[in-house]
């Protein structure tokens, strides 16, 4: 079975959200990131791998070290994904307002 990797799955996990917050201000090595967590190093590596696969994190080779940094483009996708949901409710409420306003007008005519 192919495991689905998308940004929503990535941010559903609290450890992964904490990692994203950590690297938001500066790029860090896997070791430096892992030192912030009580979890076993391989577990943190697994999280980093998922975040990289979802393109939320980018890897950069610097000498012998690999640095992880945030991919703002992909993060924007996460911020934008709520907009279609808001739009649906906005349309729905606009309809409600229009329907009820027509009731006021009908009432006035009577």
């Amino acid at each position, binding site marked *: 079975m192919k495991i689905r990797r998308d940004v929503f799955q990535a941010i*559903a996990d609290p450890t992964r959200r904490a990692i994203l917050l950590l690297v938001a201000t500066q790029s860090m090595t896997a070791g430096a990131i892992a030192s912030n967590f009580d979890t076993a190093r391989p577990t943190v590596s697994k999280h980093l791998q998922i975040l990289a696969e979802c393109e939320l994190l980018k890897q950069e080779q610097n000498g012998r070290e690999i640095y992880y940094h945030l991919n703002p483009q992909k993060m924007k996708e996460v911020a934008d994904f709520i907009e279609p949901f808001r739009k649906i409710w906005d349309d729905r*409420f606009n309809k409600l307002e229009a329907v009820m306003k027509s009731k006021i007008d009908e009432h006035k005519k009577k």
Partner: protein
Amino acid sequence: MEQKTKINAEEGKQEIVITREFDLPLELLFKAYEEPEFIEQWMGTKVLKIENKKHGSYAFETSHDGKVVFRANGTIHEFIPNQKIIRTFEMENMPIGVQLEFLEFEKLTDDTSKLTMQIIYRSEQHRAEQLKLPFAYGINMAHSKLQEIINKLK
């Protein structure tokens, strides 16, 4: 311009808060949620049943070309006219599951009112399914639009 409808879906929580200010007196806003005739008009669905009282229940159904395309139902836990509705809501055949809704109606001025809707999901994952739904729909729309253009080019 400030948005009339606001959505707050905080990370790490299993709820969504929707707020909206209406150019409608409070009584009319509430009626839009109370009267089956009005619900049908703005929600675009048929109201099969609605019992606006504590422990009452409701059911909506939408058909398209004689086929049922949407069905939702729930139980009303509290119904205080012009103030509050507490109810469950469930879309049938959807992975989102039952949600608990707190609807609060407030008077702002004689002609304006505000609705605050707090929706609680079973888990963060269930909330994500809900939020992804229109997102996925939007992507599908974009895809079919693209397909249409490509087909024309052929």
